[in-house]
């Protein structure tokens, strides 16, 4: 009897803590944003605890299936196979867009080329166009930089710009965005892609056209927010429908003014 009472007491004590505690896991792209938002959230609600861990989009979603996380961060949409798997174990994944991330195509500052169409970019990254002359530049070999195959940015660029086709085998893959900026800034014929937040004067961003050259749009937070800049990807949170009540306060917090300002501050585009 005493044991039961103790148990009840303990669970009563634990219940409010459990309700407020949230675990967020997944993509490393979304990680800095989630961390910043979680910190602000905890400051505004002292009783809440949010723990944020990285590991990659795939890791986050499989943690959601196991129930070891409440929110899964993903820089890509949930895959069909993953969705099926969740459905089979009677969970319904719900999607929530946290923010948008724009990718900018960058070249060396001395490069006279200012704009490219998607088709030209596809040709360059697939190795069909190998000289800047072919796209209106000077007579120089194009050096293509890309991210490592494990990165979500690599996948998104492949999906959006290359229309799911493969990069050529000779692309130089760099382990981090910083390395791409460094290399592009010191290589005259270089081309690469980075998140909008990483743009700096060491490199030049190109205007991109997705309609065959009729409209070129330069990457900026403004053009990305208005929806005119085409190379934009949503960043997602996934949660289990049964768990909605628990994650709702945090998701609602993301829509507040301070959270949106912070999102913008970190170089992401608020939802």
């Amino acid at each position: 009897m005493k044991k039961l009472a103790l148990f009840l007491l303990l669970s009563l004590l634990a219940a409010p803590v459990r309700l407020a505690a949230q675990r967020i896991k997944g993509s490393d792209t979304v990680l800095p944003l989630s961390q910043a938002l979680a910190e602000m959230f905890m400051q505004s609600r002292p009783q809440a605890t949010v723990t944020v861990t990285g590991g990659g989009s795939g890791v986050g979603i499989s943690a959601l299936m196991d129930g070891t996380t409440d929110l899964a961060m993903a820089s890509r949409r949930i895959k069909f196979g993953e969705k099926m798997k969740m459905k089979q174990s009677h969970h319904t994944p719900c999607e929530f867009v946290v923010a948008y991330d724009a990718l900018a195509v960058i070249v060396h500052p001395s490069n006279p080329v200012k704009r490219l169409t998607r088709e030209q970019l596809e040709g360059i990254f697939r190795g069909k166009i190998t000289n800047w002359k072919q796209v209106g530049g000077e007579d120089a070999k194009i050096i293509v930089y890309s991210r490592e195959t494990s990165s979500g940015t690599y996948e998104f660029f492949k999906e959006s710009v290359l229309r799911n086709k493969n990069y050529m085998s000779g692309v130089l893959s760099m382990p981090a965005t910083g390395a791409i900026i460094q290399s592009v800034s010191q290589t005259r014929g270089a081309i690469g892609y980075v998140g909008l937040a990483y743009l700096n004067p060491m490199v030049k961003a190109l205007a991109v056209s997705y309609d065959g050259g009729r409209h070129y749009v330069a990457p900026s937070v403004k053009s990305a927010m208005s929806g005119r800049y085409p190379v934009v990807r949503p960043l997602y949170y996934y949660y289990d429908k049964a768990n909605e009540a628990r994650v709702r306060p945090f998701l609602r917090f993301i829509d507040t003014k301070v959270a949106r300002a912070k999102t913008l501050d970190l170089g992401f585009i608020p939802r």
Partner: protein
Amino acid sequence: MKKWIDRLARRVFTVSGFVTSAVILLIIGFLFSEAAGLFRQPIVEEGYVLALNKSNTVDRLSAEEIKLLFDEDITNWRDVGGADMPVRVFRLEDLDRLYTEEELGAEYEHAGDKIAEQVRADRGIIAFVPTVLVEGRTDIHLVPDHTIPVKDVLLGTEWYPTATPSPIFGMVPLLAGTLWVSFFAILIALPFGLAVSIYMAEVAPPGVSRVLKPVIELLGGIPSVVYGFFGLAVIVPLLQQTFRLPVGESGLAGSIVLALMALPTIITVSEDAMRNCPRTMREASLALGATRWQTIYKVVVPYSISGITSGVVLGIGRAIGETMAVLMVTGNAAVIPTSILDPLRTIPATIAAELGEAPAGGAHYQALFLLGVILFFITLIINSCVELVSARNKTKR
């Protein structure tokens, strides 16, 4: 009492010896068992299948052909042994574009029918779809899957580990890159290392070598990431300007960084070996009228050759297994290098860069373990060579 301590010490040593060997064997076993799984994986991503129109007779597609088909580089079925008709590629995402959500059903229960509808309508279609949606259908032709052939992996020249529907794990470019960059690293490090160690052991006044030795040993203590960043920020632009290269990230940059990293090992080990050359031999040589230089290359170096070889091999070992520095300066392009000024990709860099996101137990993960096995064999061969060389030298003496 003393006897007990003696006995205890012996036990402890025996146990630790056995435990270490067992752990090493377990690690090797783990490496091999993970790697062997690769050849049991289907070539198309697990859980998916390639569906063709019923009239299409193509029955076997290699990973290479699948990639070319989906990249729209092969546009006619004739090129892969089929009838003369154009190829149309169909992915699951296309389904969302062609049909509304209601048509597909909330749980995608009608998706299978819609896929079949598309496949029936176009004779040249190739659809990459989840197996569960089209299983057991007779109105479409599913390409029977086969396991990844050993030949395609060990002799393949393309490395596309995340290509969908069919990843390609050709390991030749990575192996070539590793050997190429290590070979040049040793070519650079060997003369410098030998020169410095001869200078320190034979020529330098004691005061100089007392200062030089700790400095060189300090070089060995610098973390490899620091070498990598140094390479990217200093060596790469330098090479680019000197050789007027379009791109500075190259095998040569990697070789120079690796040579720098291997130098301390080569120098310290071979210097110690030369210092061990008995004074009497040196004096005998000088007494016979040989000059200092003749003494060095006729007496001291041959005497300490086995020590020098082990120093060199330890240096090679470091070069081949080095990850971080190479990852930052070689450009990591998975192509077979034709010159040392080309970008290349090494095995350790590949493992380091890709293992983090490769799903555990998948084909990509196992391919990376197989690369580990290859690396293990390379080091094993090198180590056995050393054993051979030093054994031969001992019998000669």
